[in-house]
């Protein structure tokens, strides 16, 4: 992994959704700050895990990077090109290199299309399907690449299991020359015995094709297995971003600590010995985030300053960054 070769650079990204009211004269009555000042870099060939609980803004961040949502402010730079202000037409060539893998292997495939057409559609859309034989050969290659048989191309999605459908979704994402895949909860809808198959496929493809991933998930064990670095999000902000070993062995932010403590480990003896530090409360509404540090309402070590002053993201000597008054005030 070369730290000097960023594929994606996101700076102070904000995605706000207006809340409107009224029938004739719609007026804005509030703002949901789904993503509220997020910065990170993803280097070529690495996997950045994006974790957090529902409503933290991890999926919105993914969609905004792909420019599938309007960006309120901030910049998104892809392979050195600032794409923040790009319209549909200018995004089109970018999308060949930046693709999405969705969570729901049932909802994200058109049930009336054959697998060949689903996987080949990006080629058609981008005008790359001029030669029929080449097109067929490419689809067969893609299916083989994700561990499916080329003769499955003539079947419909309902003939496949959840794990196989997710493979179809991955093949579609790879149909063009994607370098960056944004994977939004790609294994969480799958049965546990199937998840490992798909996780391993992601890792093999990364090695073989030199892919870069943003892996969005709530399952901290899966994220740990697949990621090189991890960003932990809470209420629209990144609270800690660190390498895998730093984050899991020595978490700094109290929220990261709480998240890790909440995950049960499949070992009854270890669980019995593990002290359970369970934090109280639930994520507050993104419509009215708490003042100061957004986590202070649930933080077991909150201080007076946390209630009024929003801690900025600070770089630590070991290379990670944390937004907490306990660290580097």
């Amino acid at each position, binding site marked *: 992994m070369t730290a000097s070769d960023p594929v994606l650079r996101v700076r102070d990204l904000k995605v706000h959704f207006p809340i409107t009211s009224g029938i004739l004269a719609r007026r804005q009555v509030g703002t949901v700050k789904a993503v509220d000042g997020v910065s990170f870099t993803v280097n070529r060939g690495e996997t950045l895990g994006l974790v957090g*609980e*529902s409503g933290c803004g991890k999926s919105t961040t993914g969609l905004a990077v792909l420019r599938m949502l309007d960006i309120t402010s901030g910049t998104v730079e892809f392979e050195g090109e600032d794409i923040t202000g790009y319209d549909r037409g200018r995004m089109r060539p970018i999308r060949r290199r930046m693709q999405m893998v969705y969570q729901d292997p049932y909802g994200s495939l058109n049930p009336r299309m054959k697998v060949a057409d689903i996987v080949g559609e990006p080629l058609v859309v981008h005008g790359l399907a001029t030669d029929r034989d080449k097109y067929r050969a490419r689809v067969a290659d893609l299916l083989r690449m994700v561990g499916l048989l080329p003769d499955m191309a003539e079947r419909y999605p309902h003939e496949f*299991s959840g*794990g*196989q459908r997710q493979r179809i979704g991955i093949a579609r994402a790879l149909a063009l020359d994607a370098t960056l895949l944004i994977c939004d909860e790609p294994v969480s809808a799958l*049965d*546990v*015995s*199937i*998840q*490992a*198959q798909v*996780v*391993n496929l992601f*890792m093999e493809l990364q090695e073989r094709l030199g892919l870069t991933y943003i892996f969005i998930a*709530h399952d*901290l*064990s*899966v994220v*740990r*297995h697949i990621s090189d670095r991890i960003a932990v999000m809470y209420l629209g902000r990144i609270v800690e971003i660190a390498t*895998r070993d730093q984050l*899991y062995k020595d978490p700094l932010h109290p929220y990261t600590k*709480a*998240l*890790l*403590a*909440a*995950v*049960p*480990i*499949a*070992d*009854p*003896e*270890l*669980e019995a010995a593990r002290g*359970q530090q*369970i*934090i*109280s409360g*639930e*994520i507050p509404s993104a419509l009215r985030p708490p003042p100061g540090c957004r986590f202070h309402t649930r933080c077991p070590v909150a201080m007076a300053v946390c209630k009024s002053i929003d801690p900025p993201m600070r770089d630590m000597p070991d290379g990670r960054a944390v937004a907490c008054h306990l660290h580097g005030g």
Partner: protein
Amino acid sequence: MTQPLLSVRNLSTRFRTERGTVRAVDDVSFDVAAGETLAIVGESGSGKSVTALSILRLIPDPPGRIEAGEIVFDGKDLLKLDDAGIRAIRGDRIAMIFQEPMSSLNPALTVGMQVGEPINLHRRSPWAFALDKATELLGKVRIPDGRSRLNSYPHQYSGGMRQRVMIAMALACQPQLIIADEPTTALDVTVQAQILALLKELTREANSAMILITHDLGVVARYADRVAVMYGGRIVETAPARPLYKTPRHPYTRGLMESVPRLDGDTERPLVPIDGQPPDLATLPPGCAFAPRCKMAVDRCRVERPPLVETMPNHHSACFFHDRV
């Protein structure tokens, strides 16, 4: 040994579907002792939820039907009770907590009405008393300001709070057994930890037994005393939690443990997936349901059903090669 609180014997539940009769639960037997937590683990289609619903006779008929077996609870066979008899048990002696609190709560009734209903119904207490009791129950499940929140509706609660309401309802009549079917699957991990810890604490306090249905091996490790692993409608392994994790005696159990990444696992070691996919209950093979995915399977496994046998004290496995797993 004392009489178990619940004793399920040779339970079979089938469903009629367009593709023929499906045996969702096939000859399942297990016991639950007073005060213990039994986890039933399995993937979708393993029969774990149908087992739970069968205990309370909540299988919709048609298309479903409990075909055979006994479900002896506190000395009575629940399958022999008439409708009034089983209604008197549900929500009183045995309570159920479902996965989806939003669809299991009535959106048109206040939380107070719903938490108070079992007390009003089973204890024939007047509503004023039932609502007092409901306030107390909301306090128990740590919903602050219970009295005023009695008049709220479920949609005014968050997902975690709704699941607390479900627990309050389940605890209302101090049941001897609580069946919790994936109670935290829809919740975030910090809320899951809160809810499960609360459930464990309150069941321990009331000395209620619990059947915890889940697919999460971590949750099982943290909360269960004993475990039954289901696959293809059958129990394939059952044991106290520690020996089950330490020395699994069924290839499916072992396979699950090796395929799931752990928070403390070795990240350099690739995950070992179980090949293939969970079985289709309509077309189960004649032998062991796991045989098509099993690395140890031999010809015998494909034609003959391995029975559940005791491989170590209190540790049962349905594998011909249980001593070699």
